């Protein structure tokens, strides 16, 4: 999968990795049994500290999304629970879309809407957000 990390975003890099993997699993980009690169390989690829990747992987393992096999890398855990999650995300996306459209209609620019969302999300920056 393709990772996009932003070192100057107000979010730890390991969480960005966690969320991107989580999102890829939820949207079906990653499926049970798929392999992710090893810690070293991914750290080198993204040019980030290996500790960042190690922390992300252990968090994902803890959440039951990833299985770490010594020496051979990380594998996505097959989980049925996640299938319905895909539906939930689609529905939520629809709601966000509708909200953005109605704000557009009221004359707010993309940038303003973006800022409102960012501020709102920072308010309850619940980092250990459980799904």
């Amino acid at each position, binding site marked *: 999968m393709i990772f996009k990390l932003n*070192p*100057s*975003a*107000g*979010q*730890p*890099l*390991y*969480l960005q990795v966690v969320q991107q993997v989580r999102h890829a699993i939820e949207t079906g980009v990653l499926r049970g049994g798929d392999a992710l690169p090893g*810690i*070293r390989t991914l*750290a*080198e690829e993204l*040019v*980030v*500290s*290996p*500790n*960042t990747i190690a*922390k992300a992987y252990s968090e994902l393992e803890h959440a039951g999304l990833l299985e770490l096999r010594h020496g051979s890398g990380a594998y996505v855990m097959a989980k049925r629970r996640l299938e319905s999650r895909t539906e939930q995300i689609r529905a939520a996306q629809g709601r966000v879309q509708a909200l953005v459209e109605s704000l557009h209609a009221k004359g707010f620019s993309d940038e303003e809407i973006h*800022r409102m969302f*960012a*501020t709102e999300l*920072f*308010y*309850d*920056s619940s*980092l250990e957000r459980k799904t």
Partner: protein
Amino acid sequence: MNNGLAIETSELTKQYGKIPVVDRLSLKVPKQQITAFLGRNGAGKSTTIKMLLGLTSPSFGAGSVLGKTIRDASQNRDLRREVAYVAEDKQLYSYMTVGQLIRFTRSFYSDWRADTETRLLKQFQLPLRQKVRALSKGMRTKLTLLLALSRQPQLLIMDEPSEGLDPVSVEELLHEIVGVAASGVTVFFSSHQIAEVERIADRACVIDHGKLLVDTSLEDMRRDYRRITLSFDTDPPAVALSLPGIQQVRTIGRQITLLAKENADAVVELTRDLHPASVEVSPVGLREVFLETVKEER
């Protein structure tokens, strides 16, 4: 002294005449992490590194590297076997060819890793027959890095390794640093390139005028540091916003801007009582933290 720290100094000071170049520096560098040592030119980075390696002796204070006291000559000798150092000026025997210099260096180390040497030679495309003096700056850095990494150090110390390198070479260097760290080597490097530090470092220590101003985990900084901007449609209230975590308050026209090191949520909640027309919260990057702290110090 084996408490998970690769480097520990206490009140480490170096004076030239009466002027302190390094001023009561208490540094803690954890093992198996990438720690960046940030500062402007002349901030005291190189002098600190030279003291750590025993290349110059401290005026006051103490320090230990991998549990060995830096002032003790015999401990220092042992230390140099375990620490690889990439110096700022990358001084090498310039009359040798690349191949000769590698063979020469290899002869000093019984645990030389031939596989690393071969891999890096290929990757860096170093010209074996060329004289060292004829190498470009980027090639010199790569050669120094090869010599340092083929020695299986526990700790890699680099003084401005990316200085003078083109973007492609910088990328290769960072890639290599990350790879080394993945093998369990502790990395401590000085730099004034904030962007590269922000990408690969676990921790950043900011030094200015010889003093340690910031010592933070970058992940913590991303999570906790926030710039909060309150905008008012009247003159902003003249209140003293002295809350824990607020590092700086500035009023510009009808706006108040705060730099919060922690508790941004609580700060925002409290500022709601001031009835601002809008509140904006944005992340704070290393560049901003660096510039703000260095500016305040002046």
